[in-house]
């Protein structure tokens, strides 16, 4: 039920978008995600775009990870 797959918006026509997922396309409703624009990534769930996925934040999760290393170093813990 929680299955959602990321895809890239290829085109938008009124309240429907065509989203590319791994080379295939899926038509999704944009009712829940009206601000989506072409070229953005969205999460696709049950025929709807559930939310936009922020590529910046994808990198930020890596930064989160790096922060922790720094914190560890700051606390004098071992870094393997």
């Amino acid at each position, binding site marked *: 039920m929680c*299955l959602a*797959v990321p895809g890239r918006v290829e085109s938008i026509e009124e309240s429907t978008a065509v989203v590319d*997922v*791994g*080379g*295939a*396309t*899926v*038509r999704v409703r944009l009712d829940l995600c009206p601000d989506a624009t072409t070229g953005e990534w969205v999460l*696709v769930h049950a025929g709807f775009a559930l939310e936009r996925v922020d590529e910046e934040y994808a990198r930020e999760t890596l930064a989160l990870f790096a922060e922790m290393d720094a914190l560890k170093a700051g606390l004098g813990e071992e870094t393997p």
Partner: protein
Amino acid sequence: MTMTRVKDEAIRRTSPGVERASLPEAVLLGHGGGGRLMQELIADCLGVLGPANGLDQPNDAACLELPSGERLAFTTDSFVVSPLSFPGGDVGRLAVCGTVNDLAAMGAQPLGLSLGLVIEEGLQREALAQIIASIRNACEEAGTRILTGDTKVVERGAADGLFINTSGVGLIAPGVLLGGERARAGDRVIVNGPLADHALAILAAREELPLQGDFHSDCAPLNDLTAAVLEAGGNGVRALRDLTRGGLAAALNEIARQSHAHVQIVEGAVPVRPAAKAACDLLGHDPLSMANEGKLVALVAPDRADDVLAAMQAHALGREAAIVGEVKSLDECRVTARTALGPTRIVDLPSGELLPRIC
């Protein structure tokens, strides 16, 4: 929460201390799924025909020794796919390829097929003509022909368009010994290309695939490929298996059972097209359990595996062939997969109906 008895309470004891929940009273769609439920149906209902009748023949075709000493492979298959026509093929093409491939899995080239048609009243003549044309074309591709047949027509509603049965006979080349029971530790597991395409093509044709894309069945006769495999691998080729319902997971579980082997695949090595993977992710399906109609799995001794792989890759139907795993040992009967993170997981026989009327 208080507990009271459930209505359907029949518990069947199969062995001391093991209780089984009751069997459903009617045959379910899942019983045709090529997985565990189907095996249970065969064991429960058809088992009365006894092992002497060869119905527990686990390989893709039965093998008969003729007085001349030659060995005949004999197989039968029924095709109830819905819809009758789909991207990449139709029921006619399936009917030829399915039976040719079962013979090929025994190392046999087809001598010919029988063709039994059960036609529903009302099927368009045009549609029937196209299916027959597909049968003819597929026979040509496979280098075989229809030797005999039978045609019945049933009233509207009794056959959903068309059901086809084909049986096939072929001679197994001298010296070729193939069977799921012949696995040995160290054997490599090789597939000839990406999985799940047939199942997804059927879903696409039924408009049950929420994606659009290049989904077409891989339905193809594999007897020329198997000839190349046997040429390259000689008696290093232990087993060949046509992958249909239940996919690679079903085939490997059968082989594991036959050989009492631990077969392990590497998840990342199994070829799946990106669009197929996206579709499986979206729907929550496992590509390992999805039906194919132009794929086989080969178990090959380690010193012949590279030769066999090269021979496959040189063939039009094996360009994306890959070694996906190996037989770890004969100590236990299981199929496992090594995941990307390292831990291994069990790969089960698929249980039942994900996708009915798939072939």
